[in-house]
């Protein structure tokens, strides 16, 4: 995923959580883990303040981390996928506009004629 480096640039290893999850380069990973950590702290601390049970609060914290991370992950990836589709449509639209401008295949001409009819 890295571009070729210049000789004078130092080698930069990407940080991987548990040695597998590259949070720097995977879209939405960093936000999900950070929100998950926040959710874990809030849930665990809140449970402890209510019940004063340490072990159970740790369990709630871990469970909160997993749920919040998963929730943020799916939400962010869904929006990311929608954005990519919109970018692709826009890119194709720009390409078609440039290619077909002033020809009979011009998309704007087709839209204008369908509006007038």
């Amino acid at each position, binding site marked *: *995923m890295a571009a070729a480096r210049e000789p004078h640039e130092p080698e930069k*290893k990407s940080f*991987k*959580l*548990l040695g*597998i*999850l590259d949070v720097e380069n*995977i*879209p939405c990973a960093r936000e999900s883990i950070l929100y998950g950590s926040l959710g874990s702290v809030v849930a665990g601390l809140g449970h402890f303040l209510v019940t004063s049970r340490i072990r159970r609060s740790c369990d709630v914290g871990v469970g909160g981390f997993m749920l919040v991370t998963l929730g943020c992950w799916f939400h962010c990836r869904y929006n990311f996928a929608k954005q990519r589709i919109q970018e692709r449509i826009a890119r194709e639209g720009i390409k078609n506009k440039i290619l077909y401008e002033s020809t009979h295949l011009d998309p704007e001409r087709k839209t204008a004629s369908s509006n007038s009819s």
Partner: protein
Amino acid sequence: MAYPSQLGLQDATSPIMEELMNFHDHTLMIVFLISSLVLYIITLMLTTKLTHTSTMDAQEVETIWTILPAVILILIALPSLRILYMMDEINNPIITVKTMGHQWYWSYEYTDYEDLCFDSYMIPTNDLKPGDLRLLEVDNRMVLPMELPIRMLISSEDVLHSWAVPSLGLKTDAIPGRLNQATISSNRPGLFYGQCSEICGSNHSFMPIVLEMVPMKCFETWSVSMI
């Protein structure tokens, strides 16, 4: 191409590879969460003083650890099947190129219009020019037009080989007596490297694949010059 000490996937060059990378990220997140949970449970096991010598059953936890893995597997299987069927979609390729595996080189045939056939041997290390990539450069690259679907027919003349180009998300076995089909569609121009991916003898590591994706005009110029 790959860079030294690389662990992750190469940059995607085709829409299928982009989908595969998204699926990989999705599955990796699930694997990361499961690993975190297991690590936490191991820590709990090692630090507890509690013992239950009279446990007879544990209905609730048994239900949870039956249902939850089934749900996780469904969450992984659905996108996986989606991509599997996406790879087999009909896409009206503009040309068909045949590649035959030999010991130890690839040969390419562009026979749709004229008879264009050539062999692609690895350039030995001693003959490399400065800046060339060791064990990856070839004497004749496979040149193809970019942003168009191309059908690849892959087979072998002798033993099993496998034609693989990681950045396009392609790996197809070359089996003698069988034609396997793959579809190439590149989003951008450039050079894309791959290596034989099925053990085929002493020089199995020394029969690379190099794809040169170029605009259509350049492809037409190249094919005319090769005939």
